[in-house]
């Protein structure tokens, strides 16, 4: 009797703790019924109350979801870690994709089960902690997908083939259907690519095409995208919409057979116009597209449009590489609170010699991360790796924004590639007040411009992408107002002058030694002038420089006063 009271108290305490957890937690009894789910888990399972949960048949509960593992293999209740545990097995954590059959909502979960045992050691229950990894999983899939898109763009000069390859990649990872159409000047369209996970459905698509009007309807679907250049998201496609769009019974039957649940259409845009559109449709998988899917599709479409434009205009791989690479640069240096920032990028002079220098800035928890790097290799392949590096770094920083960790993740992503892909990179985290953390992987150390001198800071670490023994030590810095950090790629110091002489670290340091207090832009102009005066002939390597000055220097005030004509006496 006393034991039961104790147990009731214990259970109550436990449930108070579990109820407060943000993670979803369920408890499964040896008869496989779920006997408890905390509020987070109830919401995830779509069950109104614990009572409803206890009364539900566990298999039925699961049947409202289409569940697969990360490779797309269907999962049954017996595959769940908690059920395995109750069978006496030692289950591994399970990465599970669940699509709600009714709402089409997609969830990725990481399930870990632990046994609760009685005094005799028998299993009383299995506790499952369900971690929601949907966003993380999508981010990873998208990064890997974009890298593959880069590879595909690099693989062929035939842009129609390239577009077919891009459409093929999207299926079934992102959509059940993916189609690419190019718009004709007469207001019609030219279907270039269509891909579906199921070959039979492609025949349905071919029959449907006979119903397509010659001219696009400017208020609907592709026509609307052509007219406005704006992406369209159809989160839900109700049957009424199909009925309204169908011209006759047979058309409606075909439309229903396709089973469209959700769709999105994004424009392929060049600088001047909308040249086509990429359409993704969700049907059998039951997924519903959201804004995140739309934005991702726009990124894919932007790359595909570049490939088409470059192929049409230049029919040269080198031009694709150049265009791709310019698309990989940040459009403009962002406004960074407390900092004055300027950057320089000069691609190598010769055709076909486009390298992989890059830089990027992005915000993390009120601080900024800056990455500058150099992907070894040339042309479109290097551009594909550059894109992988940049997106991996951004995604990595969402989980751990320490510069050394960002480099470690980029290193791991590069090593997963089939061919050796090397990259030097420097990752810097800066706060508005001047605190900075630096990690360097096989990249030149940055230069800190202080009041009296310019000198290297930081510690060297391993080149990214191929080496077994690695280390990325972090260096903490506190910059004072007016001090500047200059990060650069080796193209700067390797610039070749008369007689094959290289510009070198000594000249760089000398150029920066007197730069304390100058604006980032004026330091950049000085570097450009010195490099241009020194260099002879076309350079073989790119050069990139990022200059970051902590604003609010005392000398700024003096300069301002001097300009105002009142501060001459203060210059000493």
């Amino acid at each position: 009797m006393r034991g039961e009271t104790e147990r009731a108290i214990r259970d109550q305490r436990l449930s108070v703790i579990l109820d407060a957890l943000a993670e979803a937690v369920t408890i499964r009894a040896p008869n496989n019924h779920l006997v408890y789910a905390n509020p987070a888990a109830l919401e995830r399972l779509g069950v109104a109350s614990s009572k409803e949960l206890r009364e539900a048949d566990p298999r039925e509960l699961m049947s409202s979801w289409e569940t697969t593992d990360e490779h797309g293999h269907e999962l049954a209740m017996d595959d769940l870690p908690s059920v395995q545990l109750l069978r006496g097995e030692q289950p591994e954590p399970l990465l599970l994709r669940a699509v709600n059959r009714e709402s089409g909502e997609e969830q990725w979960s990481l399930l870990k089960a632990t046994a609760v045992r009685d005094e005799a050691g028998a299993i009383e229950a299995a506790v499952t902690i369900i971690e929601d990894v949907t966003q993380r999983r999508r981010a990873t899939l998208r990064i890997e997908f974009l890298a593959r898109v880069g590879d595909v763009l690099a693989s062929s000069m035939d842009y129609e083939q390239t577009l077919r390859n891009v459409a093929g990649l999207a299926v079934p990872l992102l959509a059940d259907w993916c189609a690419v159409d190019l718009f004709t000047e007469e207001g019609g369209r030219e279907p270039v690519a269509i891909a579906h996970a199921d070959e039979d459905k492609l025949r349905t698509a071919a029959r449907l095409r006979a119903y397509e009007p010659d001219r696009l309807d400017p208020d609907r679907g592709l026509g609307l995208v052509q007219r406005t250049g704006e992406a369209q998201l159809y989160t839900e496609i109700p049957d009424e919409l199909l009925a309204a769009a169908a011209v006759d019974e047979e058309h409606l039957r075909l439309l229903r057979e396709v089973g469209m649940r959700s769709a999105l259409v994004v424009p392929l845009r060049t600088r001047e116009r909308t040249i086509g559109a990429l359409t993704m449709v969700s049907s059998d998988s039951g997924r519903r597209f959201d804004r995140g899917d739309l934005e991702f599709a726009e990124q894919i479409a932007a790359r595909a449009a570049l490939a088409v434009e470059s192929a049409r205009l230049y029919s040269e791989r080198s031009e694709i590489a150049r265009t791709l690479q310019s698309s990989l640069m940040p459009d403009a240096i962002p406004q960074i609170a407390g900092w004055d920032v300027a950057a320089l990028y000069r691609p190598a002079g010769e055709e076909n010699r486009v390298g992989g220098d890059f830089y990027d800035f992005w915000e993390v928890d009120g601080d900024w991360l800056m990455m500058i790097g150099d992907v070894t290799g040339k042309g479109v392949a290097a551009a594909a790796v550059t894109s992988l590096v940049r997106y991996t770094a951004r995604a990595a920083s969402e989980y751990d924004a320490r510069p050394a960790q960002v480099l470690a993740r980029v290193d791991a992503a590069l090593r997963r590639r089939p061919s050796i892909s090397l990259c030097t990179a420097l990752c810097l985290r800066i706060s508005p007040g001047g605190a900075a953390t630096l990690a360097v992987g096989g990249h030149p150390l940055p230069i800190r411009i202080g009041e009296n001198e310019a000198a290297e800071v930081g510690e060297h670490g391993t080149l990214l992408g191929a080496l077994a023994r690695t280390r990325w030590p972090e260096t903490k810095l506190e910059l004072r107002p007016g001090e500047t950090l200059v990060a650069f790629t080796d193209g700067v110091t390797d610039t070749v002058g008369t007689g094959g002489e290289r510009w070198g670290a000594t000249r760089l340091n000398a150029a920066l030694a007197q730069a304390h207090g100058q604006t980032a832009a004026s330091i950049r102009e000085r570097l450009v002038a010195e490099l241009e005066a020194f260099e002879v002939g076309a350079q073989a390597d790119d050069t990139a420089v990022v200059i970051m000055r902590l604003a609010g220097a005392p000398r700024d005030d003096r300069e301002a006063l001097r300009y105002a004509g009142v501060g001459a006496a203060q210059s000493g």
Partner: protein
Amino acid sequence: MPRTPFEINVVRDRESATVTLAGELDIATVPRVEEAIEATLTDELQVLTVDLSGLGFVDSSGLRLFIVLDQRAAEQGWELRLLRPDAQVLTVFQVSGVEENLPFIEDASVT
């Protein structure tokens, strides 16, 4: 534009080859080295020694060349030996963590 001439010297017998490099190893000269080394990689080759002691400069594409060679050696079952460059060039290998990952040896006569 006068440049320091880049020199590649290959000495080989049936099972071993020694490739001696002198000058500046960069984006412009790496393809020539790749070509010269490719010619030595026959089925009989057991040991490839690359002598870097005459190099005056190495850039990242030079580092890549040796990393790729090291991986090919592991895959194809022959041995790569690298003879250290002078201190200034060696620094490039050291600061990038490449030196500790590649099979540098002290002297070509070591077998």
